[in-house]
């Protein structure tokens, strides 16, 4: 059971990574990040079955952080959109050195 759970979470995580790397739309990248977080959550839960409740505690933490991150991240994306009429990350390179 553990192996299947870990394999699923690995697949989910990889999909999330590929999404972050290849997509340009900030919203989709954001969703992919959520996917990665949840893949990790799945791993924690799977391990908690064998190693005690600490994994589940971590999952609660991760969800909390993810919620906060979603709030802040969406706010930033909205603010960017208001400035640029776009959420395409290719146009957002003000931090260029």
């Amino acid at each position, binding site marked *: 059971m553990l192996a299947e759970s870990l394999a699923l979470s690995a697949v989910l995580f990889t999909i999330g*990574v590929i999404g*972050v*790397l290849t997509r*340009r739309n900030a919203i989709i990248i954001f969703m992919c990040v959520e996917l990665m977080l949840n893949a990790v959550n799945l791993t924690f839960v799977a391990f908690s079955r064998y190693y005690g409740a600490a994994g589940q505690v971590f999952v609660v933490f991760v969800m909390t952080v993810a919620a906060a991150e979603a709030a802040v991240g969406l706010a930033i994306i909205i603010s960017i959109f208001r400035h640029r009429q776009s959420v395409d*990350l*290719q146009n*957002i*390179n*003000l*931090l*260029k*050195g």
Partner: protein
Amino acid sequence: MMLLQIATQAHPLSGTIAEWVWLLPVLPFLGFLINGGISLVSATHVGPADPDMGHGMVHHDSDAHEVSAAEDHGAVGDDHHAVKPHQYAGLVSIIGPLVLGLSFVLAFMIFSEMRSVSMTTPFIQRYFSWMPVGKLQIDAAIQLDQLSMLMVLVITGVGTLIHIFSVGYMKEDPGYPRYFAYLNLFVFFMLVLVLGANYPVLFVGWEGVGLCSYLLIGFWFSEKANADAGKKAFIVNRIGDFGFLIAMFLLFANVGVLDFAGVGAAAHGMAFGGSLVTAICLFMFLGCAGKSAQIPLYIWLPDAMAGPTPVSALIHAATMVTAGVYLVARSSFLFSIAPVASLVVALIGGLTALFAATIGLKQWDIKKILAYSTVSQLGYMFIGVGVGAYSAGVFHLVTHAFFKALLFLGSGSVIYAMHAAYHHTGNHEDAQDMRNMGGLKKFMPITWGLMWAATLAIAGIPPLSGFFSKDSILSATFERAGHSTLANASLFGISGSFWLYLIYLFGLTAAFLTAVYMTRMMLYTFHGPNRTGEKEQSHLAEAPWVMTGPLVVLGILSVFGGLLNLPEWFHVGRVGMLDSWLDPVVGDAGRRVVTAPSAVSEQVSGGNELVLILIAVVVALAGISIAFSRLKPQKLLPAAQSPEEEGFERVLEHKYYVDEAYDAAIVNPTYQISKNVLWRGIDAGLIDGLLVNGSSALMRGFGWMGSKLQSGAVGTYAWVLVVGVLAVLGAVTLR
């Protein structure tokens, strides 16, 4: 150490006035502090009365004058601005000569004490440990022996006279306190030089007098020529000092001590004529050649005449330039076991004596003649100390100090009078060119008489002082050519005996030329018609007594200085006083030279020596009479109307073009290499261009690359991050 202390306590001079020997240099140093303080204090009052401003105004018309002619303006002022004495001139006039006079009195008291006891070892006073570094133990110590006592008497005695003369000569100069501060400082360093008990202390004095010489040559530094002359003296002397330093390093590396007593003791163990002692002596002589203006480093001394004339008398004739002779005599324990080095010393001395004398024949500047004459006479002294006649060399040093100081101060009086005359009429002619003088005898009879006495002395006319000293050198050279360790040695594959006869001939020829050029100087300066100018004649007058007084004293010394060391054939008076006085210091070394193990020829007998003397006197008289018969002061034209010389005379007038040759061979190549290779190539190109700017360009390149990484595109960052994480994970996993 214990033994030495016991020896010091047992010394006959301990507990006497000689314990106060440290006061000798300290007194002039006090004078330096006071006069220097006055100079600094008065220099801070900026305003119309500012001395430096006045000084600059006095010199504004300098461009019309030649390099050497530009000097002495500040002394009298050569335009119509009223030059008033410095505000503290009265105080300075007292302190400057007074400290030196006190020093002389003290020196004389110590001298009397030394005469009353018999001392064979030097009286050494240690004050503190100066450089205790591992095996190198150098004390700040003073050594009082017969040689240093003699030098101290000459320095303080002649120095006092020249200080007094300076009071008159420099009294209107705006830099008056500065002048006396430098002069006092010079005497301080000179006394350190002759009183030091080891080579490093001597070297402190050696460098110190060089510094004061530089400061005083460039005393009127607002004219570039004077400042340049100072720099030239300083730089040329550095070449010599390099040799002196190498000699000290060699001594320390091979002997381990640097005090005279220690080196003298170690010299007994050195191989006779060995390469080590020869190298030490040759390097040391390089230092002497710089300080005492011998070939090839003599070129700075004629230029040094840019300084005030009393400075020329004190530093560049009587004392500092003889430091090289003193050093050789002081190191006689080394030179006497290095016959090849001694031959080089004598040969360079002989060459210099002859070479400088020929240049002196065609100079027009009165001080330049005396400068070349000094170079030539220093050559004589080196012949003396080179052939091992140390006391004869030192004897000539002493008599030369008398008559050359007199000649320089006399020329100072002449220049003073000429300046005063030109100043009154606003004439801008060269006050030092003999072609503008002539007939000064009737205006300055005292100076005339005294300078003739000095001229006859330097020409070697009996019974004046120069005759005895020059004769003792020449006859010693001749004697050693037949029978000495030097004659047995060989230089460049030619026997020392041949070299010594050659040096004797050089000396004899130089004596002849000396008589000629000195007579020429006297004829053109004091005899014939006056060429100064109609209006100026009424202003020509004898200098005040504060200037002629010292001249009279020096005149007496020049005439009777020979009494110090009468030769044996001279049956009147005490014979060889100086020889026996110096015997504890240089006697052994001198005897080591004369007693050659395998020589067969006999000593110069009394009759033989009289022949030599007769030759020398005839040569001197011939020189004077030739000068009288050939030179026609009546036909001489003032400098402005004189035609250019032709042929060899022009070569002589331009000093064999040695300065030009040095410029072409050494100075300009050095300058060009410095400018094009060292500056533009290495400094600007390699160091600044490649290393400094290159490393900054390299860093800028790295920075450029780094900045390109910061694209601002979040996608790229994410890629880099993921690749990095994968790489780390891969590395950890596959390890």
